């Protein structure tokens, strides 16, 4: 007769353990770590290029960038003025803590203000992999359609800010901004901002830069609070 042993134990994966180590390193270094997730082509790299051009003068920025096989993203980000380390996942659909831990060795973290982690373009798997980041961003874009938030609720629910890119294309698509705003409101955590912008025209980018600056200060306060 079999005996049933009740455990009710949450499975903590190897990745969660690594993420905790990364988080501690990011805290120690005093930087803001931001994980960017989106479907392919939504504009994560474009957002980092724009960020590099506008904020590099005041803030020390760096990025690690996940891509299946190429280093095109890292080259673009570097050309825009932000040091960037490419991570090739070799077909892997998300970044994991091990890859990020290896890639950030390229930087002196204590000399950075913001570290961006650009995930592999995919709105499913990256949502389940904590990379030790302080803040998580989901980027979506108008040509993808206005129902992305309800189709990928796990990713959107985990976001600390939602960026809607390519708002300049709204007139030539079937995208409904009202519908999108409602879908976002339905799935995100309370108080999570929606930043509507266009990396192409620059419209709305200031709100993104302000958000980043505000998060730097907020995270510094959170880390100091935990130390007390």
């Amino acid at each position, binding site marked *: 007769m079999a005996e*049933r042993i*009740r455990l009710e*134990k949450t499975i903590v994966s190897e990745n969660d353990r690594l993420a905790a180590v990364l988080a501690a390193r990011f805290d120690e270094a005093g930087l803001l770590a931001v994980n960017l997730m989106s479907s392919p082509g939504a504009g994560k790299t474009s957002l980092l290029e724009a960020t590099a051009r506008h904020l590099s003068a005041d803030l020390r920025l760096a990025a690690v960038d996940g891509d299946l096989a190429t280093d095109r993203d890292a080259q673009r980000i570097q050309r825009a003025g932000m040091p960037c380390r490419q991570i090739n996942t070799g077909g892997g659909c998300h970044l994991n803590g091990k890859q990020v831990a290896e890639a950030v060795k390229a930087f002196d973290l204590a000399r950075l203000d913001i570290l961006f982690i650009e995930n592999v373009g995919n709105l*499913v798997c990256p949502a389940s992999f904590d990379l030790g980041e302080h803040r998580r961003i989901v980027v979506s874009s108008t040509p993808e359609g206005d129902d992305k938030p309800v189709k990928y609720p796990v990713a959107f629910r985990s976001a600390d800010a939602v960026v809607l890119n390519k708002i300049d294309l709204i007139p030539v698509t079937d995208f409904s901004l009202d519908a999108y705003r409602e879908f976002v409101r339905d799935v995100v955590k309370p108080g999570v901002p929606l930043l509507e912008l266009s990396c192409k025209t620059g419209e709305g980018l200031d709100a993104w830069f302000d958000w980043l600056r505000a998060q730097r200060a907020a995270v510094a306060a959170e880390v100091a609070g935990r130390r007390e």
Partner: protein
Amino acid sequence: MHEVSLAQAVWRQVAAEMADHAGRRLVAVHVVVGAMSGADPESLEFALGLLAAESDWPDADMDVRQEPVVLVCRGCGHEYEMTEVRLVCPACGGADVEPTRGMELRLESLEVE
């Protein structure tokens, strides 16, 4: 896509538990995945089975059950099961709802002989 790595984490935990029951045979592993955990129950069951075949208990039954998302409204305290992708409290209309169940992967129990 990442159910294999999750299955490996489950098996590490199973092996650790079985170390406390040395000499006994593992009959079944019961795992619960939340509907918003990001893991697909069918793929996870498949991956657990592959790892079982390589374990000391190749015949152990791998059971993965999906559990619904349970939300609690911080405004009015209403607790309810999520039936649509809409994180708004049906009782008071507030948006400050927090999932209390259905976000995680849990090793619920083992059956041993």
